[in-house]
């Protein structure tokens, strides 16, 4: 998985490419936790994300919990397949999917 971060003032965009699974999720979790100081808007761009499993959902949940305390979080450009996973797991109500 490739993680591309773009910081614009207090807004951080994380673009994900590839597979967010059990083996790659810890890498994203670390990236997020080390980047959120002073961030009040976190955007995930999922244009190139091909795959997500429960390990990836857990990372998104933990990011959402942090951002609930310090600002907002948005998930953008989600494929139909990943959106269906968000629906089945109730993540569609937890996340703000644009």
């Amino acid at each position, binding site marked *: 998985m490739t993680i591309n971060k773009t910081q614009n003032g207090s807004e951080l965009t994380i673009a994900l490419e590839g597979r967010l699974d059990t*083996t790659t999720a810890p890498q994203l979790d670390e990236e997020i936790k080390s980047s959120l100081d002073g961030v009040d808007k976190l955007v995930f761009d999922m244009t190139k994300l091909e795959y997500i*499993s429960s390990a990836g959902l857990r990372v998104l949940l933990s990011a959402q919990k942090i951002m609930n305390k310090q600002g907002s979080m948005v998930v953008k450009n989600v494929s139909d397949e990943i959106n269906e996973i968000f629906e089945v797991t109730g993540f569609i*109500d937890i996340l703000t999917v644009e």
Partner: protein
Amino acid sequence: MKELKIKASIENLERVIAFVDEELENNDCPIKLQMQIDVAVEEIFVNIASYAYQPGEGDATISIDIIKDPSRVEITFIDSGIAYNPLEKEDPDVTLSAEERQIGGLGIFMVKKSMDDMIYNYSNGQNILKIIKNL
């Protein structure tokens, strides 16, 4: 039918997914179904790798069978670890807010929701879990 016997460890996840994907691709499985099947295989294999042999280690055997009429894929996971029936695991409450959500419990739930059938048996000291997806 194709079969893969492999050490049940998370570092082998990629090989397990590649094994399953090769069969699915050879049979022109639609990409959406392939993703759902990959997720199911990941969740089950990671469960076996994480819990079946704790604190030791052991193997898992994964077999995949693509069947015609009605068209479906059957994937069977066998391990010799502690007896564990994932179908008895209580479903997480998917209506809770982020703050109330527990980390975990989602994996098997996703498998239950996305597969057409799941069958568990414990026999001769082996957990045998079969998932079936209609194609």
